[in-house]
């Protein structure tokens, strides 16, 4: 088990990367191009602030980012208008690789971004961060710039619960602690060392992104972790503490849907890896219940974890990037 030495060498606090001038010098020395992708769906309230902060601090002041893009799933609000007004490149996911069709889901936007964006490193940042700060990008990019063997950097955050005597619980969210970490403990114990495996902020080298499949729904993060781990091992990962992240709190009912999608993706991966055989026919309907006028009502949600193949297998991508 490599957890202890890995935690020692590959877990960072964003503050160690405060010297942006040095970081930009290193990036230029290594001739790296960095793209930021913000996947959106109806995020007009928060996306403008993210773009202004990232552009100002990491493009104008310190040229760390070469490309700042919003990839949208078809917002009904002014997300794209706000984003382009503040200087981001904006794309409708359905317009990218149109011959591949369009599927609605965050994973779809992340996958399409690999084709659309030019960077050697792509940083994914969710659009709902209300306390956006440049550290959300440079904290994730820095380990990739400074350590060649690092391929995938994941964010984690403070989740201040009651604590004392200097021991701070570095826990994940509810789905992580109740579902993901127990599953990892059973099947991939080393991956338990990732503090928040489901966080929506991560930076990845293109050479990794183009090799892995993308579930388009809730399962994208857990699938990535398993795929990268089984191919390159724990040493390919790093994680950075980005302090506090303020965002919308999700209702428990919504977390149930997320957990259902994650579990499907996890079981799929385990089957592909011959670690598990699910003999029964598995339903893709999540059933939840609510009480209405003292009657218990059943609600059904169809959650199908579709998957996009590795981008490297797409002809248009191979042509664009000369593979």
């Amino acid at each position, binding site marked *: 088990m490599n957890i202890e030495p890995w935690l020692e060498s590959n877990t960072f606090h964003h503050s160690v990367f405060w010297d942006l001038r040095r970081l930009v010098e290193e990036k230029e020395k290594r001739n790296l191009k960095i793209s930021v992708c913000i996947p959106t769906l109806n995020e*007009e*309230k*928060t996306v*403008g*602030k993210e773009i*202004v*902060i990232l*552009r*100002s*601090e990491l*493009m*104008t*002041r310190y040229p760390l980012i070469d490309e700042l893009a919003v990839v949208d799933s078809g917002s009904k609000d*002014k997300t794209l*208008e*706000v984003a382009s*007004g*503040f*200087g981001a490149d904006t794309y409708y996911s359905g317009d990218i690789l149109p011959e591949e069709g369009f599927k609605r889901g965050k994973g779809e936007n992340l996958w399409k971004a690999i084709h659309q964006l030019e960077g050697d490193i792509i940083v994914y940042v969710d659009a709902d961060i*209300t*306390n956006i*700060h440049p550290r959300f990008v440079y904290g994730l990019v820095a380990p990739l710039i400074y350590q060649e063997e690092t391929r995938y950097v994941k964010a984690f955050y403070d989740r201040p619960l009651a604590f004392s005597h200097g021991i701070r619980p570095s826990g994940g969210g509810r789905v992580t602690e109740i579902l993901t970490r127990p599953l990892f403990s059973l099947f991939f114990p080393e991956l338990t060392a990732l503090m928040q495996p489901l966080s929506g902020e991560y930076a990845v080298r293109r050479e990794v992104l183009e090799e892995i499949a993308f579930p388009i729904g809730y399962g994208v993060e857990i699938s990535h972790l398993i795929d990268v781990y089984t191919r390159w091992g724990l040493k390919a990962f790093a994680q950075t503490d980005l302090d506090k992240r*303020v965002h919308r709190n999700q209702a428990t009912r919504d977390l149930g849907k997320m957990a259902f999608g994650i579990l499907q993706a996890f079981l799929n991966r385990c089957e592909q890896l011959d670690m598990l055989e699910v003999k029964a026919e598995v339903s893709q309907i999540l059933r939840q219940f609510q009480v209405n006028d003292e009657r218990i009502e059943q609600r059904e949600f169809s959650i199908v974890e579709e998957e996009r193949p590795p981008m490297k297998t797409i002809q248009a991508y191979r042509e664009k990037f000369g593979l």
Partner: protein
Amino acid sequence: MNDGARVDIASSPLAGLVEGVRSCKDILLANLVMMAETPAPTFGEQKRVRFLLDRFRESGLDRIGDDEMNNGVGFLPGPEGAPTVAVVAHLDTVFSETDPHALSLGPDRVRGIGIADNSLGAAVLASLPHLLQSLGIEPRANLLLLGVSRSLGRGNLGGIRFLLENSEQKIDRAVCLEGAPLGRLNFTALAMMRGEIRVEVPDEYDYSRFGVTGAIVHINDIINRILEIPRPSRPKTSVVFGSVQGGNSFHELAKKAWLRFEVRSEADEVADMIESRIGDIIEEVRARSGVHIEMDKIAFRRHGGIGFDHPLVRTCRRVMEELDITPKIGPSMSELAALIGHDIPAVTLGLSRGHLVNTAEEEVEIEPIYRGAAQVLGVLSDPEIGGGAV
């Protein structure tokens, strides 16, 4: 410093500056977001000072530092022998550390607590070095950039007063920045006194002797008597009752109540007279009622100012006219009062249109900010500001 083409303000239309500022909008708005999301209650401005000084450092200013009152200072030298102009913005807001400081940035407006008063002023101050460098503007004076603390409420302009009393840096004139409204042009300060009157009914109060009255009735009595004090129409004088509070329930007499008020006048002696009369009223109500009554003098200002035809005001009016900004002239009680009290010619300029200022829904419009900031650059680079006669 930027090596790009210099903008010669004397021969270029100032309107070009608006586009110049707009081209720096990501810097300006990012500073606004980061400034506004950094809590800065009066007496708790340290984090904002740190942010401001970081910005000054990144821009390569000289003599960067803070003082024991948490004022943040940076210096940008002008031509040799030029006068020194202080550009001043207060950093504190009326909101507490724990109020939600996350703001939202829409296509046309920025919303968040303290955004107009005075995060925008502080953000333009933080952005000034970058704007000057990017637009290739060389100011005609030395610029002393001051982010001052302890301005509001009980702060009583403590930051700027301390600086003026203790700094060895000579200041020849000053431009104060306030977030709103665009067009604001203050060059006089009213005499002002802010007070808080607290009434407390003691536990051993003898209701049989004084009648069944609680603290609220006494506050009401005091208010009525203050309203009876004659106020001249010239010089203009007013008494503002800002807030009143007392008691806890429907059915119990209030044990405590307080009143916050402000006396304003164009004459020091009238403000002093009203303050003295309020003192008499308190004495009398206290003696008649037997309750505890105290008055705290929270803040005060002396009347003063410079004339409409003062060269600094003239420069501001000319720049505003060229930028199609209609001046809204009136007295101020901000940093301007302390500067004028030290015989430093000073003006206050507004930067944008604000809405619901000092509420949870406080907003500023984005588009006018470009003209507001261009106006500041226009004033600082005007040939007259570097002249000894100002």
